[in-house]
């Protein structure tokens, strides 16, 4: 299957990645090859098979929803490359 340059641009936007023109060409070919190869899974009959993601059979592990102190807050705020105001990270306007 062949991904068009437009499709690659669309996926890149969904993935929040800005790509240069040469990158779009290169990735278009590479992704197309990989996805074509992935179609070989169609050979496997999976009728009635439930998909799996939790591979060791665990179910619904929970913890009690109690308020705990956070020793990290200041250390975490030090990590941001944006500015901090009133103990919050200041970001650019969404709109």
């Amino acid at each position, binding site marked *: 299957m062949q*991904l068009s340059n437009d499709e*690659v641009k669309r*996926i*890149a*936007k*969904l*993935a*929040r*990645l*800005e*790509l240069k023109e040469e*990158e779009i060409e290169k*990735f278009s070919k*590479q*992704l197309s*090859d*990989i*996805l074509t*190869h*992935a*179609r*070989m*899974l*169609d*050979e*496997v009959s*999976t009728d009635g*098979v*439930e*998909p*799996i*993601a*939790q*591979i*060791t059979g*665990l179910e619904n*592990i929970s*913890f009690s929803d109690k308020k705990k102190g956070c020793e*990290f807050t200041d*250390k*975490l705020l*030090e*990590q*941001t*490359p*944006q500015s901090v105001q009133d103990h919050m*990270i200041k*970001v*650019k*306007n*969404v709109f």
Partner: protein
Amino acid sequence: MINLTIAEAHKGLKSKKFSSTELTQAYLDRIKETDNKLNAYVTVTEEVALKQAKKIDEIGQFSNPLTGIPINLKDIICTEGIKTTACSKILENFTPPYDADVTKRLKDAGVVLLGKTNTDQFAMGSSSETSCFGVTKNPWNLDYVAGGSSGGPTASVIADQTVFAIGTDTGGSIRQPASLCSCVGLKVTYGRVPRYGVISYASSFDTIGPLTKTVEDAAIVLNAIAGHSDNDSTTPDIPVPDYTKSLKEDLKGMTIGVPKEYFEGVEQETIDAINEGIETLKKLGAEIIDVSLPLTKYAIPTYYILVKSEASTNMARYDGIKYGHTSDNAKELLEIYMKSRAEGFGDEVKRTIMLGTYSLSAGYYDAFYLKAAKVRALMKKEYEEVFKKCDVLVTPTSPFPAFKIGEKMEDPLAMYAADTLTVPAGICGLPGLSIPAGFSKNGLPIGMQILANQFKEENLFHVGHAFEKATEWHKKKPKV
């Protein structure tokens, strides 16, 4: 001193033959002498290491086998106050404010941290070539890759730049470099070791484990790092046995399955080495049976559709806002995301994110992600059935020995194919051990892989240790 195993170093420290400071200094000197050739280390924590060693020598208490032992950690494992970069520009200057569970457990056992080692960016790769700090060379031949993604930790072990190292294995990233470098590499059962503080690649595949010089050393390390953690809900409350008790030297009563599909498409020298290894296991008393795992040929596409999908979600946190690199050229919010990520991520990371985004997107989710998740369920069942007939499987670890640097960089599919024999363990959450089992005609290592059922690491140590004691492969060291 630098070629000692954990067990040997521990004896020396306990009997005061040498101090932890002397041992640590020996490794720091070795790193200075050799790392410009190998490029295994990203950060060397000389001051921290000597300070830790001094404190340990002052206390003089060596009841724990890991006390005073110098180690390194793959640079996706968080170390408080010490840069943890994932070998990516997006985290080039990231200093975690906390330790990973693995880091904490090893610190509590008294290890000395020599530094952080090189990896494919965000652990995405099979050669360590995608690191923003350059490739780690294979200590057996500097024109060849050390393997990946744990190339740095592995090369450092076989080159005696450390006693042992900690890596991660999602689809082979401990076992494959171990095979390419002639080390012992252990992938644990999914959930045996907590992932808290380890930078995520694929959350239902990632595991953490040791790279060591002997099977015994791997068992000692696993004793220290395994077990439930409240910080990681995927670590079940299954007790941790003393894995060193499984280090027996004969295999009477052990049934070993040899799956024919794992020998298809494998280089002849590798096949010969593994077959010779199987003869050795037979002589040690094991019963060898032929088994079949027909879904093996679907493992690679199943693996990369699932891990790339999970990774695309995990990579969304790198947004130029909370931590890490942010673009200087962004004028509005969307540009912060688009440009920071474009500037910070390498090609394989971008490919990963786009492949995952596509596989999860509307109209393609059923054909790709869901399909792969169903094949995963079928593969899990296939291995459950096979382990009713045998205690372990024995296979080659890698279809070929180390390849030349640059050889597979332009062909992502060829790179993925390097993991053909290691991804099934990731898909099914199984533990696997790679041990030295021979060399190719041009002197490159060949590893043997032992696979066991979930939470049956004891069987890996049993078979691995017996094989090691009956062979000399693990004694060979490269001249660096």
